[in-house]
């Protein structure tokens, strides 16, 4: 095998692949071959680096140079300048927005400085399709240690001591869950990895599976050893083709190396893993629904108890954990419970991965210690709000969560603080909103999602949410009344109290939290028939200020329905009967002449 002394790492996450990182990789390889360097410089495709905003990302090792927004055509310059002549390609380096200086080492970037990477430790560093690279980074050492040195109960004690809590949303202590399943007697038990990731706008679990599938496989095997299961199942969304592919490759390699299968590492422990596919139903992330779906049924939740740990898949004791929860296990065993427990807050240990998105400069995947403040996440890591706009709120917990406002910018993020603030940790979606986002519309957006996704089993969830949605719709049309506002609250409470599963019980949260924090916006819609953010179409009309209009015709040329007329260099007008209120003219006008009324 060739000995490589330089490695070019190209991001192969979904976002970067969408920006032609495959072609970039091929171009790099070709250029290297042109110079006869194919045996000295290796081109690797890794998982997500996290800095999706500026993808595709290319990193060169050993010198750690970090190139951003690399296009396929830049391959030639990277090879000819950096690889051959040792000169960094200036214009591809990240420019620090604070001082306009180019930064060449990712460790110096604000985006990475405050991050602590445990679950994402290998994402962007190793080739996920090569088990040797995982093993080279302490991979499968934890499994080996467990099988050789520890009894199952000892491993469980270690996990309990670490304080790890479930990352799928609920935050249940992982060690305790394993212990409960361990204690149930049965001829067959199952380990299930929940990779359904239903929160719209979140991509943590997929990135882990795409970037480091072996860490999940290793952890599932450890879990199997602890609870006494010889079978594992990964329930993954069919919409994640790349994650599925990488997982399959990893499973084959692990079996080939004897890390899955019979008598693993010479012990008498047997473990195998199968993949099960979801088919696009958010409620299937709920564990009882997930189990029914794996059994080939409609994914409808059932009443707990019995909990899956007593009676789960095929009626057997089943331990369900989230992808990120699993990814934390090997480092805890390798580095010790005390190390893990030293990170985070009193009741929330370790780190949390967030998919940071929305109106923020650095969209991406981040892993931060519990206890970090929102301000640090948004302004230091996230680089602040896009286009210099004003921060309004951040939504965590997806359709089950709530909004956090300016007042919470300095609250340390952990399970309990977020709950107390009327939101929740959720699985890690973090959507930033600015002054242009209408909170009534946001609540409506989430409700629409819930309506789509409710399984329909319970009346409050199926019909109650529909009524909530209708009231919100009425308000966004400017037809709401004060009585409607009271009804929203009352109905929300009823739905929360009387739904069977977590979906129904949390579905009114976006409504309640916007009512709590943004009552003024609701009042503006109801009393003044105005949408302060200028989002609710029924409540606004576009006009052109004659004084400011220079007659540049840009709006005229961009209006998709031809509603704008006027002479060149003369003032323009909008025909209200044709206008579809798309707002393109407003975005396009360079003279601030288009106004919303």
């Amino acid at each position, binding site marked *: 095998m060739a000995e490589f002394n330089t490695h070019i790492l190209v991001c192969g*996450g*979904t*976002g970067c*692949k*969408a*920006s032609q990182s495959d072609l970039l990789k091929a171009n790099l390889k070709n250029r290297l071959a042109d110079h006869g360097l194919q045996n000295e410089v290796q081109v690797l495709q890794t998982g997500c680096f996290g800095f*999706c*905003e500026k*993808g595709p990302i290319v990193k060169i090792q050993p010198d750690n140079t970090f190139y951003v927004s690399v296009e396929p055509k830049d391959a030639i310059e990277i090879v000819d300048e950096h690889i051959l002549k040792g000169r960094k390609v200036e214009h591809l380096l990240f420019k620090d927005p604070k001082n306009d200086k180019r930064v060449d080492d990712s460790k110096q970037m604000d985006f990475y400085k405050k991050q602590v990477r445990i679950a994402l430790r290998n994402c962007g560093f190793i080739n996920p399709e090569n088990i040797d690279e995982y093993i080279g980074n302490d991979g499968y050492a934890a499994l080996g240690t467990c099988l050789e040195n520890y009894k199952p109960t000892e491993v469980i004690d270690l996990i309990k001591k670490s304080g790890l809590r479930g990352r799928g949303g609920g935050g249940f202590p992982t060690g305790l869950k394993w212990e409960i399943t361990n204690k149930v007697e049965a001829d067959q038990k199952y380990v299930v990895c929940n990779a359904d990731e*239903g*929160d*719209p*706008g*979140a*991509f943590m679990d*997929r*990135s882990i599976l795409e970037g480091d599938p072996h860490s999940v496989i290793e952890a599932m095997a450890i879990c199997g050893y602890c609870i006494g299961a010889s079978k594992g199942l990964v329930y993954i969304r*069919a*919409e*994640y083709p790349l994650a599925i592919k990488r997982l399959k490759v990893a499973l084959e390699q692990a079996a080939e190396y004897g890390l899955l299968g019979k008598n693993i590492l010479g012990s008498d422990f047997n473990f195998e893993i199968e993949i*099960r*596919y*979801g*088919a*696009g*139903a*958010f409620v299937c992330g709920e564990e009882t629904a997930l189990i029914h*779906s794996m*059994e*080939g*049924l*409609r*994914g409808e939740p059932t009443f707990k108890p019995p909990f899956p740990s007593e009676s789960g898949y095929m009626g057997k004791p089943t331990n369900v954990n989230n992808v990120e929860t699993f990814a934390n296990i090997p480092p805890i065993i390798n580095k010790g419970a005390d190390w893990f427990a030293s990170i985070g807050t009193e009741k929330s240990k370790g780190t949390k991965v967030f*998919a940071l*998105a*929305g*109106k923020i400069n650095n*969209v*991406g995947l981040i892993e931060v210690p519990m206890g970090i403040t929102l301000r640090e996440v948004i302004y230091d890591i996230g680089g602040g709000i896009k286009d210099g706009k004003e921060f309004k709120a951040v*939504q965590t917990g*997806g359709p089950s969560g709530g909004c956090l406002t300016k007042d919470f910018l300095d609250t340390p993020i952990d399970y309990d603080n977020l709950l107390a603030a009327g939101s929740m940790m959720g699985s890690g*979606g973090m*959507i930033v*909103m600015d002054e242009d*986002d209408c909170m009534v519309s*946001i609540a409506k*957006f989430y409700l629409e*999602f819930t309506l*789509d996704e409710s*399984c329909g089993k319970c009346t409050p969830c199926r019909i109650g949410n529909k009524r909530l949605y209708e009231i919100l719709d009425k308000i966004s049309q400017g037809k709401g009344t004060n009585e409607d506002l009271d009804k929203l609250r009352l109905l929300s409470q009823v739905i929360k109290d009387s739904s069977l599963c977590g979906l129904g019980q949390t579905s009114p949260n976006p409504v309640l939290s916007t009512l709590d924090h943004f009552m003024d916006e609701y009042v503006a819609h109801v009393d003044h028939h105005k949408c302060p953010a200028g989002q609710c179409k029924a409540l606004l009309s576009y006009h052109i200020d004659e004084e400011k209009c220079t007659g540049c015709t840009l709006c005229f040329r*961009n209006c*998709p329905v031809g509603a704008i007329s006027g002479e060149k260099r003369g003032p323009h007008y909008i025909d209200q009967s044709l206008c*579809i209120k*798309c*707002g*393109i003219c407003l975005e396009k006008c360079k003279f601030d002449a288009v106004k919303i009324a």
Partner: protein
Amino acid sequence: MTKIKLAEKTIELIKSVCTQFGNKESELINVLHQIQSKLGYLPAEVQEVIAAELNMSVAKVYGVVTFYSFFTMLPQGEHPISICMGTACYVRGGEKVLHEFKRHLGIEVGQTTADGKFSLSCLRCVGACGLAPVVLVGEKVYGRVSPQQVSKIIAEYQEGCVNVQTA
């Protein structure tokens, strides 16, 4: 609704997929995934054959097919267009983009154009939130799509050439 008569070959294919999964009821979802990937959609006639093969009622198969949004009983257009309606795309204007697609194609979500060329659907987060708002045409991902680009994207496929640069 008029019944389609399945070709002998199609019936054979369905049967072989069912056998591959041991004709087990619990494998229904896997069977449906496989068959949809081969046939493109799951009309009632196909569900009937599956039900018979797995020895379960057609109602149960239908119940599962309609429960999951990934399964469809209608044929997709030659170029299926999916608009991401995940939260990240929504706050960056995904709804406006969707609106433009509806307007240009003259169809609603879940429908196919009369010439069978395009169908329109929504999905939730494709994992490229950094490129929001995101549109998929077939497997191709378009990032940072503005409402003005919509007509250009459609035109690409109408002429049958696929090479417009985006993002």
